[in-house]
């Protein structure tokens, strides 16, 4: 309820801007209240637990502002209709919407998330393909759990140009990433969101609020915290484990690499010595052999996963931080209230 009310209370900046220095074509996103409600409804109806719902955003770009005016969900996948054609479905859907005079331009997609665990390879890949095809597209991440706790959580992300470059080249080796000089902080950029309703709707909302008989229930003030924290910690721990594994992998790789370098070096030296000896004896030098063939460099582990994991960990940490600071505030407030009574 609270979320709905909030979305109805006029144009509200949900997210603080991460800084105005975005060099992307989209600097701000304006979402219709309708879209927000549709996304929430979609999750409410189809998403359960850790299941994720996805859909297509429709809208258009005005100057450097992306206006999202409508959306429609992807149908849930089931095992038995594997031959379902998604592209076909999308085209069909967009054509139908066009017939009823709704914006039919594809401007991105949305996805629900479970405790903020959305930084994944799948998201990266699909966002890349979106952004590759439609430059202004964004991904909207909707966090139903946070929303249920009292504050609507809707975030828009885009891949940074740097990451786009890397993905285009598909070079995820340690060297490639090093050259690109990319860290997990610079993978995604968040675009500020503004939710906007038409004046008519605003008027209706004001009208409704007066008449509303729904008791004021403030999930916002819920003091229990351990459940949410536990879940977050659990997820965080899993990621940390993954990270450890990745590091170990990388470690072995670099050890192998250096070992091989040494061997190669030794081999070359020996070769040189031998050649020098031969020269002094007047024999022809040994034929050059392909060193790269003799010493095949070990397969470097792809580092993109590590980056993603780091990004995810970062995300979790932010979540936990946010959550705990809010809760601490609430606890202090509760304490004060108790004392007052």
């Amino acid at each position: 309820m609270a979320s709905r009310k909030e979305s109805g209370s006029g144009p509200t900046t949900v997210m603080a801007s991460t800084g105005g220095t975005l060099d992307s074509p989209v600097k701000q996103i304006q979402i219709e209240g309708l879209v927000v409600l549709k996304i929430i409804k979609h999750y409410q109806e189809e998403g359960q637990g850790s299941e994720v719902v996805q859909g297509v955003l429709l809208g258009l770009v005005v100057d450097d502002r992306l206006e999202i005016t409508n959306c429609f969900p992807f149908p849930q996948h089931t095992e038995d209709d594997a031959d379902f054609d998604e592209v076909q479905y999308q085209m069909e859907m967009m054509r139908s919407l066009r017939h009823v005079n709704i914006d039919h331009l594809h401007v991105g997609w949305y996805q629900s998330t479970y405790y903020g665990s959305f930084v994944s390879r799948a998201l990266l890949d699909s966002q890349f393909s979106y952004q590759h095809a439609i430059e202004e597209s964004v991904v909207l991440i909707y966090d139903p759990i946070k929303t249920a706790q009292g504050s609507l959580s809707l975030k828009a992300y885009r891949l940074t140009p740097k990451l786009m470059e890397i993905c285009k080249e598909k070079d995820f080796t340690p060297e490639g990433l090093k050259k690109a000089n990319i860290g997990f902080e610079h993978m995604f950029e968040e675009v500020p969101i503004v939710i906007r309703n038409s004046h008519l709707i605003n008027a209706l909302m004001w009208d409704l609020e007066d008449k509303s008989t729904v008791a004021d229930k403030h999930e916002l003030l819920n003091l229990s915290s351990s459940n949410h924290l536990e879940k977050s910690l659990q997820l965080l721990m899993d990621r940390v484990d993954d990270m450890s594994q990745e590091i170990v992998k990388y470690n072995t790789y670099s050890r192998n690499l250096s070992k091989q370098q040494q061997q190669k070096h030794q081999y070359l030296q020996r070769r040189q010595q031998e050649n020098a000896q031969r020269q002094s004896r007047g024999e022809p030098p040994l034929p050059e052999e392909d060193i790269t063939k003799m010493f095949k460099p070990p397969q470097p582990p792809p580092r993109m996963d590590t980056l993603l994991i780091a990004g995810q960990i970062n995300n979790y940490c932010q979540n936990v931080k946010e959550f705990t600071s809010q809760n601490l505030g609430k606890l202090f407030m509760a304490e004060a209230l108790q004392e007052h009574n």
Partner: protein
Amino acid sequence: MSRFFATGSDSESEESSSADEITPKAPGTTFKQSLLLSDDEEDTKRVVRSAKDKRFEELTNLIKTIRNAMKIRDMAKCLEEFEQLCRAFLKSKNIVDKEGVPPFYIRLLADLEDYLNQLWEDKEGKKKMNKNNAKALSTLRQKIRKYNRDYETEIAAYKENPQESADEEEEKEPGDSGSSSDSDDEGGDEGVTAKSFLKKKPEPTPEASKFLKTAKGSGDESSSSEDDDDEDWSSDSVHSGSESSDEGDEKTSSLAVVFLKKTLDTEKSEKRLGKKRKPKKKERLEEEAEEEGGEEVEGGWEKVKGGAPLVKEKPKMFAKGTEINIPVVVKKLNEILQARGKKGTDRAAQIELLHALAAIANENNLGQGIMVKIKFNIIASLYDYNPNLAAFMKPDMWKKCLDCIDELLDILFDNNNIFIGENIAEDSESLAISDQPFRVRGCILTLVERMDEEFTKIMQNTDPHSQEYVDNLKDEGRVCGIIDRLLDYLETKGSTEEICRIYLRRIMHTYYKFDYKAHRRSLGLQGETKSEQDQEESEGEDSAVIMDRLCKFIYAKDRTDRIRTCAILCHIYHHALHSRWYQARDLMLMSHLQDNIQHADPPVQILYNRTMVQLGICAFRQGMIKDAHNALLDIQSSGRAKELLGQGLLMRNMQERNAEQEKIEKRRQVPFHMHINLELLECVYLVSAMLLEIPYMAAHEFDARRRMISKQFHHQLRVGERQPLLGPPESMREHVVAASKAMKMGDWRTCHSFIINEKMNSKVWDLFPETQRVREMLVRKIQEESLRTYLFTYSSVYDSISMETLSEMFELEIATVHSIISKMIINEELMASLDQPTQTVVMHRTEPTSLQNMALQLAEKLGSLVENNERVFDLKQGVYGGYFNRDQKGGYQQNKGGYQRGGYRNQNQSNY
């Protein structure tokens, strides 16, 4: 060929040909020969054939085949054989270099070439040939032309004067073999004979076959000393040869081939064995003559036959009128024994002979000494009856063997003045009836041990679910009886070593049997209602007493480690089987076998595994769950219990084990009646694992570094969880899994009903001797462990809990509940205190909450993450990078133990 068959085939030919093969089933034909072995040739030495002879024999065989092929114009075969011949010739190059090219080889080359040319010119014949043959012919012709170029001079010389070259060779051969003086003549004779036989083409090449003969024949043959026989033989064959050559060349040549073949074969088999014996020529002659008849009819082209029979005696042992005395009998005995182990020996017949000899000896009252000796040999040849180790005795043989051993023991018991021993030399035996005691060579202990092994083998090879197995098992009593008798005998006569060995045999037959009468006696049920048989059975010593006596003797006296080890293991097994847990455990610990058993041979290891398993089951019966689990862990965790206990082979692919290994493994199997029930074993293991693991899991729910007590149990749990639809449990494992789940919730009644019910009773629990007691113990254990699990799982829900309630819930006395909770508190497993006046447990709530637990885990994980990360840096910077200060790192690692967050931060700040 067909002509041969056409000449007629009478039954005789069949008979004699079957006699050629070693067939123990046809003693009738073997006895047909009228002559007996006698001793006058005993000492003739046989020259060991040289490599040369062997090689040349190979060559001649090939040449023979080629000639045969030539005769039937089978060019393809001819070509094939010729290639083989070339190869064989290359192989024997060494010898050829030394000796020069053997003339028979040259002969073949020359003949073959002539023959081919002839064929080649015969245009009509060529047309008739099938395609294959025609092709082979042209190839062969080219080949031989090329090949013969190397031997041009020899071939030319040969063609010029075939006779001469052959003679030359003749002279050489006997010289090589360096034997009797008349071998020259003999060789010549034979050569002529063979020559006449082997003529196979219109244009005579008379010397051909001579070489065949001389190459191998004369070398060996000539070594014999009796000229008359040889002379006889050859003249005879000359005669028949000349006759037949008139009739038809082909026929005779075939005959000759067979003939030659025969002698060679017999010689070969004789020679291989390296024995000094040789049957009289006359006898051989007759035999051969007979075979000739048969062979002639059958056609001579068949390939090498098995070694000719050597021992062809009649049951009649001694010539009439011979005075039968000890030396004669011994001689006879030796004579029979000489044939032992030879290829052609009819083993069944040999046994018959020995029996007959025993009867004769008995008839003539030659005394017990000789009887003992003959008996020894009969038993030995019974054991020899089976050619390989894997085969087992046939029932009748086995019966005979048992009877024989019994009789032998009878004699030994009746006559105190017989000394037997392995160390008595053959010539120092005294078998004659005199005042002196008999001295006989032989070892009764070895025979009995072998008998015991044979018994095991029979049991291994019988289907354990058949009536036959039961019947065979009935012999176990007899085997034990024999061992007992021998034990008595050796106790008075044998050395300590022998006593140890026979004791071990006795132990091996005792340790796995549950002593029901002692069990009954200990229960105090000995009494009135029993039948007479039972009464009889319950007399005599307890097996425990016997085991104790025998084992202690071995511990004290044995000097070989193996017997002692086996004895200890059997002793432990026996203790464990009879629920004497402490004795069994102490003995196991004292023996230190656990440390060095891996150096023992596989059978001992199997025995060790059996013992450990029995020990574990014993501990379980006594309620020592932990000990039971530990004892069974090794066997069960591998998942190869069946194999480790020697109770069956696991299906594995052939890469891991070839047929040979499989045979060896099969021989190690324990007979079925000694098996330990594997399901019982697994059930005992799983139930003990459940009783240990479930409370442990409950206690360490949040421990990140929780180790598993039993992997196999966890595996079963996981299998249970994976089931999409959970029906009521069927198998033993499912029962245990279901019970574990119930126990997890602290629901001991359900757990109890899963572990002890009719199905499980019939499958497992009724197999124990003291079923009721075991079940009671189990119920109690389930109650106790469920209580512990309950407290671990739900203590966070309670502020305080009355012990009375607990005792009601788990149907335990308050005192027991009190003691369990006290133990938990003392071990710091449960954060609580006991309130004595109100009989309640007050929880302290000092345990970390799950969130805190989680945070701790996270901290730990982060620690390892940082450490891993540091390693990456280490590598990047190298040792001399100086980025890291070693001291600092040490300090960090010290901090790690306590998870001091401050420590981390300080470190990190200083590091980065």
